[in-house]
Structure formats: structure tokens, C-alpha cells
């Protein structure tokens, strides 16, 4: 049943404008990060790690939440328009499977985005920063951790986009969440805020690992957020009336 829902969700992405966001935002983010790095070479002396701090600062705080919010808002916008809620909810699938399928599709897009960001990071390092070697493996590790943190963000954003019929409002809330994440993270409450989890996972704007020795609580927090959101979505979808 879940598989059928995922196939259906993937089909909805054909010829969809979401791919513009997918390609354009990481390019802006990488360009901005590289420019910042090249402007501050005298203080940024740790080569690949320094470049990473610049690439991830705005990516984790703004671009990533914006992109995941847009993916989530777009997937629900398709249902908010033209009474499609009736269509999907009268289909012989569990409502929760619809939500789970959307989450998995957002996660898929998010993974692609992380890969694209990595490619841009390496390309910028080699082409513009003039590094002749390859980035350290820990960067790949950060990206994977970013996906775990991103799971919580994706789930929260999908829930918001499901409940809020407007396209722009959940994206705005995603941006607020990302910016608030930087503040909450700096106060040491990172595990309590999903957007923080992503930033900490990515080791954003740090050249030493912020999560060193703390990976387990981090993963538990990601799982906790995911569970809370999924349960909320399940209850809402099953117990409330459909408003098309």
C-alpha cells in the first residue's frame, strides 16, 4: 500500500516546478559560501573545513529549511488545490500511508539535495578555492548526519503544510524555524528543536565536530521528533473530517 502511494507521489512530481528550486537554491548557497570564503582567507585557514563552514552557515540556516519547506508545501499544495483531498482520502489506502509516502518523497529530494550540495562544495573547492586534494571523509559523514536531522525538519514541515492551506506560510515558518535554530543551538538546547538537529548534524559553521561523542542523543532526538510528528499526522488524518 505504501509502495503504491510512493509511486503515485513520484508521478505527481513529473513536470513540476519544484525542480527549479532544487537546482537554483543550492547554486546560490554555494556561490555565496565560496565568495565569503575567498573574502576572508586571512582568518579562514583550515582549507576544506573552512570552506565547509562558509558553505553550511547559510545553507543550514536558510536554504535547507526553505528547500525542504518548499518540497513539503508543494506536495500538499497539489492536494489543497481543486478538491484533491477528496480524491486521495476516498482512495482505498490508509491515510497515514499517504503522509508517509509524502515524507519519503521529501526525504528522497532532500538526499538528492545533500548530494548536489556536496558536488557543488567539491567543485567550488577545486575550481575557485584552488585546492588540489579532495575533502576529508568527515564532510560526507556530516552530510549523512544532516539527513538524519533533516528527517525531523521534513516531518514537521509536512505536518505544517498539511494543516496550512497556503503555500507561502509554511515556507516562511520553515525559515523562522531555521533562524531560530541557530539561536537555540547557540544556547545549548539543540536537541529540542528539529531545525537545530539538522544544523548540528551538518556541523554547520564549525570546523571541529560539535557532536563529537554525542551522536546517540542526537539520533534519539531525531527519532523522537519524527515519532511525535508521525503520530500527530496519523491521528489528525484519521480522526478529523476531510476539508477539501
Amino acid at each position, binding site marked *: 500500500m505504501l509502495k503504491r502511494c510512493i509511486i503515485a507521489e513520484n508521478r505527481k512530481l513529473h513536470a513540476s516546478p519544484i525542480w527549479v528550486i532544487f537546482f537554483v537554491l543550492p547554486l546560490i548557497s554555494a556561490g555565496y559560501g565560496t565568495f565569503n570564503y575567498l573574502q576572508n582567507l586571512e582568518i579562514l585557514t583550515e582549507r576544506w573545513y573552512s570552506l565547509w563552514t562558509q558553505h553550511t552557515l547559510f545553507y543550514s540556516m536558510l536554504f535547507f529549511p526553505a528547500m525542504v519547506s518548499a518540497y513539503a508545501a508543494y506536495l500538499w499544495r497539489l492536494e489543497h488545490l481543486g478538491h484533491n483531498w477528496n480524491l486521495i482520502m476516498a482512495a482505498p489506502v490508509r491515510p497515514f500511508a499517504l503522509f508517509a509516502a509524502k515524507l519519503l518523497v521529501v526525504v528522497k529530494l532532500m538526499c538528492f539535495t545533500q548530494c548536489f550540495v556536496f558536488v557543488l562544495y567539491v567543485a567550488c573547492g577545486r575550481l575557485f578555492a584552488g585546492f588540489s586534494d579532495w575533502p576529508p571523509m568527515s564532510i560526507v559523514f556530516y552530510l549523512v548526519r544532516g539527513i538524519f536531522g533533516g528527517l525531523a525538519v521534513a516531518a514537521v514541515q509536512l505536518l505544517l503544510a498539511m494543516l496550512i492551506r497556503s503555500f507561502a506560510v509554511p515556507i516562511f515558518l520553515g525559515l523562522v524555524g531555521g533562524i531560530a535554530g541557530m539561536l537555540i543551538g547557540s544556547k545549548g538546547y539543540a536537541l529540542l528543536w528539529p531545525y537545530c538537529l539538522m544544523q548540528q548534524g551538518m556541523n554547520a559553521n564549525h570546523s571541529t565536530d560539535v557532536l563529537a561523542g554525542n551522536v546517540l542523543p542526537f539520533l534519539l532526538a531525531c527519532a523522537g521528533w519524527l515519532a511525535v510528528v508521525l503520530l500527530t499526522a496519523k491521528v489528525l488524518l484519521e480522526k478529523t473530517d*476531510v476539508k477539501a
Partner: protein
Amino acid sequence: MQTVIETKALCKQYGPHTAVDHVELHVPQGCVYGFIGPNGAGKSTTMKMLLGLIHPTAGRVRLLGQELTEKSRLPLLRQTGSLIESPAGYLHLTAQENLEIVADLKGVPHKDIGRVLDIVHLTQDRNRRVGQYSLGMKQRLGIAMALLGSPKLLILDEPTNGLDPAGIQEMRALIRNMPAATGATVLISSHLLGEMEQMVEQVGIIDHGHILFEGPLTELQRHSRGNVTLRLLDPAKAAPILRANGLTAHSDSCVVTLPPLQDALLADLVQKLAACGAGVVELTPHTKTLEEIFLSLTSEEAD
């Protein structure tokens, strides 16, 4: 005959407002059932409760001989096709892609898509984006989505809404033939009685959340018989005959308005009027509008 849809004291309350009030529907197998009422009467709400899209405040729903519960809902939906509140669909995709999505969700093989496109005459336009479709085409695509997988029960909410006369005609023919062609039972709603008369065998009339009438269309048509007006050359000569037949006619110069009469009585009366030289030049039977039928049904209910 099996009853395909049966509701018992179905209610839906929104705060102080009762949208659906103890509705009892009985839709027999293999018929086209017209669910008629003005806008806001509770038609859509009732239909959504049949599909489990809205949770009833009270009452029960039985579909295809099975109680609708959280557990039975999915197996029942697998045998049900629906079109609720104007056509759905993804505008950036083609009709073919839209139907593929619905087929995937229903678990129906894609080869069924060609069949339903044929039925609704969209085969030629299957690869056009639905955003470019006219309302009538979207409506037909909605029907095609409902028909995927040959469901035993079709629930169609105002499928003729917004169609032009030709489109309505086509939709009517399509739906009327559905039970014979596919064996499906069809529940179809409309706010226009006239639109339904050539399509349905059974009707349920709802107003303010109450069922006012349920039964065969022929029985409803008895209620829809309106006054008869006669245009006479000499109304004065007619008066004694009308009195003798116990009719109180309302006459306005040469036009006489009579209450609804059985055909045999009317024929007899016209013959007598002609014989006495009243000069019958025009006879117009009037059909009551849906509103007037509502009034006559509600006043009967009050009696």
C-alpha cells in the same frame, strides 16, 4: 433486491448547526438513485459520510451489505468509485498521468485506463495537460477516475454542475446506462430535479438535512403535478359545470386555474366544457418546481 447503500439515523452536527439530521437512505442494487436537494441541504455531507471522509456525529452506514467501520472502510472503498465536490485532478499532469496516479492508489492495472478514457470520450485528449481542459472535460475525467477498477458502487456529487446543455445530455446518457453497462449502482446528487428526471429511477429528496421523500421517481412525479390552466372563450358557461364537479376554480378573465387533476377526470371535464360551449382553446398542465414540491412535501409532513 439487495440494498447497496443503507443509512440509519445518520447525523452530522457542526456546532449548533445540524447539517444532516437522521437521514435514512435505501439505495437498491443496480439502479440510478437521484439524491436531490437545494444547495446546502446536506447532500455533499451525507455523501462524504458514506465514503468515510466525514465522521458522522451519530448513526450508521451500511455499504454493499457491510457496516462501514474503520476496519471495513478500505475494502469497501476498493469497490467504490466517487466524485465529490467538482472534479479533482493534478493540473500540471496529463489525463493519462492523472489516471495512472488514481490507478496506482486503487491498485488497478494501468490497462484499465484505456477503457475508462473510452467511456468518457477522452481518448483523443489523453496526453493533454488537464490544466488546458474545459470544465466539462475535467468533469468527465473525474468520472473516468471514479470508473477505474469497475467499482460496484459509484457516488457522484453533482457531476453535471457547470456543464453546458450538450455536456449534460452526454453525462445523462453515460450515467443512465451505467447499471446496464457495468452492473454498478449509482448514487448521484443534484440540486435540479428536472436534470435528474431523465436519468434516475429512485429518488431521495433532502432539505435542511432532512429526507422529505424517498421512493421511485414515478411516485415523486405524482407530487410534482401542478395546477392546470384552461383558456376559455366563455368562462361564464363553464362555472356551473366546474361547480357540479366540485371544483373551485380560480378564474381571471378568460383563464381558469384548476387544481391538479387525474388525467381521466381532466379529459372528462374538458369534454363537458366543450359540449356546453365554453370554448376550450388552451389547456396547460403545470409542473411544480422543486421548491414547490418541497413545500407540498413539507406541508404533507406537517399534516
